[in-house]
């Protein structure tokens, strides 16, 4: 990377410690909090001084946070973009100030990829695909109609859009897999529950629920149970994230399948930051280590879940 060429310059603190400015999207979910905690913990462990700021879900805040980091002359800037596009200008400013940038969790769609060193994070579209593929496999060979309801994330947010399209792509080949209703649950547990209540009332027979995150799925489970149905059996449930609560439900058989979207990318970030600062080459795309879980896998994994 170009940013690292003048390593050993003045930046950072007087103690020669590496300073990392990190701008988080916000604190919109437990997943995000875990993500933040991971970054903080890893920074402390790696001896990196972390400047953290929270954009409260607003791009304008995030842009000004990044500019703030530039003014503060931090060594490396990292951020989880609120939205995919619109970063060129501020990234150019960072480049002009010779501060390397690392993206986490969400990508940017800039055409000029030299504006950032690396992107660490999962691929939402792939997550949706994984969910769809599992479902296709479940119903392989069966021809009866399968009614799917989908609980989408916040309308217009990148994970919601990508998880939707990824999933739809993966089940496209099977005409019997039909999305009967799709509605936003805003990534919230309570909204997942109310929307599911209405789904249950307005869709004659629901076979599968696909929720864009665990929380909505958990809310929906409440609704399903209240309606006298058995989650996981009467209605198959697929979610994304694999937070602790979701894994517990998965282990209990209330959820059938979870695609992991790990928030724990702190270590990878610190490692990359150090490399970038030292001028070493880093991979442009670093995928977070993540998998998928079935109930059995969940039982084994559960004791290790921290978040």
């Amino acid at each position, binding site marked *: 990377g170009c940013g690292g060429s003048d390593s050993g310059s003045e930046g950072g603190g007087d103690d020669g410690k590496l300073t990392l400015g990190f701008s988080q999207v916000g*604190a*919109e979910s*437990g997943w995000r*909090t875990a993500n*933040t905690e991971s970054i903080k913990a890893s920074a402390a462990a790696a001896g990196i001084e972390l400047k953290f700021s929270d954009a409260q879900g607003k791009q304008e805040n995030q842009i000004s946070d990044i500019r703030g980091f530039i003014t503060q002359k931090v060594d490396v800037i990292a951020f989880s973009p609120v939205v995919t596009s619109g970063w060129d200008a501020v990234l150019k400013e960072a480049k002009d100030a010779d501060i390397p940038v690392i993206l986490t969790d969400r990508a940017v769609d800039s055409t000029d990829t030299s504006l950032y060193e690396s992107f660490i994070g999962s691929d939402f579209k792939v997550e949706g695909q994984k969910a769809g593929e599992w479902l296709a496999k479940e119903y392989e060979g069966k021809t009866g109609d399968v009614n799917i309801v989908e609980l989408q994330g916040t309308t217009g947010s990148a994970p919601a859009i990508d998880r939707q399209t990824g999933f739809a792509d993966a089940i496209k080949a099977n005409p019997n897999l039909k999305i009967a209703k799709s509605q936003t649950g805003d990534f919230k547990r309570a909204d997942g529950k*109310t929307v599911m209540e209405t789904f249950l009332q*307005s869709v004659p027979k629901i076979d599968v629920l696909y929720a864009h995150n665990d929380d909505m799925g958990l809310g929906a489970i*409440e609704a399903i149970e209240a309606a006298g149905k058995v989650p996981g059996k009467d209605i198959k449930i697929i979610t994304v994230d694999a937070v602790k*609560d979701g894994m517990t439900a998965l282990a209990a058989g209330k959820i059938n399948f979870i695609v992991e979207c790990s928030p724990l990318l702190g270590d990878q970030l610190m490692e990359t930051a150090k490399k970038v600062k030292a001028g070493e080459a880093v991979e442009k795309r670093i995928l977070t280590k993540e998998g998928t879980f079935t109930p059995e896998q969940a039982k084994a994994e559960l004791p290790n879940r921290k978040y």
Partner: protein
Amino acid sequence: MSIIKNRLFWPSLILAVMLVINMFTSNQFVTIQNGHLFGTLIDILRGSAPLILVALGMTLVIATGGIDLSVGSVMAISGAVACLLISDLGDQNAVGSVLLIIGVAIAASLVLGLWNGALVAFVGIQPIIATLILMVAGRGVAQLITDGQIINVQSSPYATLATGFFLAVPVAFLIAAAAVALTLLLTRRTALGLLLESVGGSPTASRLAGISARRITIMVYVVAGGFAGLAGLIYSANIKSADSISAGNLIELDAILAVVIGGTALIGGRFSIAGTVLGAVLIQTLSVTVVAIGIPPEANLLFKAVVVVALCLSQSPDFRAKVFGRFQSRPAVEKPAVEKVVTP
């Protein structure tokens, strides 16, 4: 004729239309299942309980000419407090302890309301900014309480608040109904309603009529805080967990909307409890209808916009007069023979 002139006629009509739509789209509208009522209508009634509670408090605040933006944060705090304490209980199903904890959470909400009221009445800060402070900081406090995570509880007495049934009727709905009754009692059986409307109508004139505007103001914020706290408990009991981030997020907008639909003017003065309840149920029905008729998420807002526009226009007497005016038979009036608009 006179019924059409009633402010609440049109919202009621729109509500009725939406309920009818739901009747057709839903598998069960109202049935009895396992000895209690069940179905879409019941879901709506139960689901609107938190909004009704918040909007009730908001009505009183607005009647005095104020506004309370902090209700969502208060909801989050009360849910967080309750769940944190319950999750520490040895036996989460101990009714006594849960009741006590509910009391603690509501007390906390009342204190938060008191804080708002004091800022408005004693420091003299404009209500919108005074409550904005708690709106921003309050959610931070709630996040601190839950440590940014969702706290789960497994307490059936607590869950009863939202999902239980009493005499076949949902408990949440009963709580909301009780709150409505209490508010009606407070405002119409005592002189509080009159004093509120008077303070909202003209603070100066009220002061000179010997009304302690301060005490009244503080009181309404306290009541609003308490109701918001109760709403927060129902919200969190419904999902058996405290979600300090999304609990009550943006509910202040819905609550204000409910109040305005109900015919209470934002500048204060006359208020209508019945109208507010109607408004709240209408908003809840609207979001259920959106799902029930399968409006795609990206069109949700457009649909809502159409309904709100229809609502506000139908409620405007001027709109009805201007648009439907010529269809109504009016007492014959002699118009001036020659009409000429004067220009200088």
